[in-house]
């Protein structure tokens, strides 16, 4: 294999990880016939990371030195893969729980007639929205329910919430 090919293979290593992530996630969703919230994404994220590690190992056996490959993996490939995976997770989640995407879909279906504001608001039963979130969060392990009380389960969404609300304060100057 030529040096140029190996250099290219190294440069696009995070894209390989992202491709594996997308394929595993699509297979998971098609197999389970639902997204099952974050769980499918977490498995797919690990599969992509594993593919990235295997690719780095392959490159090390063919071309790179061990310190070189470890440094580039830690400084570039892993952070870039993490960013791509994070972007993918957010992109997927827009379709999963975004009210704005659903409003868009409703308006596309309504076509040129548009939708009566009250009719649109009526389609969104806030109780149904609340229940849908509760069911989704409990199923994914993000909330735990015991004796009718809800507590945080896995902390992953808590950290995402902290980051999002922190950025809101910094970028938009929105009070907490």
């Amino acid at each position, binding site marked *: 294999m030529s040096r140029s090919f190996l250099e*290219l293979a190294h*440069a696009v290593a995070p894209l390989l990880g992202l491709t594996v992530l997308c394929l595993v996630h699509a297979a998971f969703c098609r197999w389970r016939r639902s997204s099952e919230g974050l769980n499918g994404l977490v498995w797919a994220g690990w599969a992509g990371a594993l593919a990235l590690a295997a690719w780095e190992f392959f490159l090390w056996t063919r071309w790179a030195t061990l310190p070189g490959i470890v440094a580039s993996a830690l400084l570039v490939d892993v*952070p870039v893969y993490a960013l791509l995976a994070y972007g993918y997770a957010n992109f997927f989640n827009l379709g999963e729980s975004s009210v704005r995407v659903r*409003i868009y879909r409703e308006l596309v279906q309504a076509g040129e007639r548009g939708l009566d504001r009250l009719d649109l608001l009526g389609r*969104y039963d806030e109780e149904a929205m609340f229940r849908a979130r*509760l069911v989704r969060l409990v199923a994914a392990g993000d909330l735990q329910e015991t004796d009718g009380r809800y507590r945080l389960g896995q902390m992953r969404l808590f950290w995402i919430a902290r980051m999002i609300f922190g950025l809101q304060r*910094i970028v938009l100057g929105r009070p907490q």
Partner: protein
Amino acid sequence: MAAGFVAHWFWWRWRRPKRARAVLLVLFPLGALCLAPAIPPWLAALGLAPLGWAGWLNVALAVLAFTLAYVVTYSALEADSPTLGLIRHLAKHGPAGLAEDALRGFFREKSHVSLRLAALAEEEMIVEKEGSIFLAPHPYRLFRAVLFYRSRILRIGEDGG
């Protein structure tokens, strides 16, 4: 990246652009492009080898990954996420947690749909005429991509909302 973020911070504090996501998609790569000429002398000063074409490809990929990750994060940043709001509210109550009614009460303090409609109108993505709501002329690339990916690639139902 940092330069792009600082420019973004000042710009947004001064006046938030209407097509914020489109502006961000241009702002970060443009910031990186402006500062790219500083990389070779900086590497030389550190005694490191200059970047080859593969190295520059790596840099471009890193900029692209950061930009895309930030733009999708920004969507969540702009609109208060009901899900993340619930999580944060529950976290404030610690291990004691909250009863379902209390959680419901918190969730229903805001009309999430009205807030989203107001945000879409502000971004000029929808127009309201005589009590009816219509889609405004807008490419809607992100929304279309999300729905296409869900239905054609993942083949999952129309959850959302």
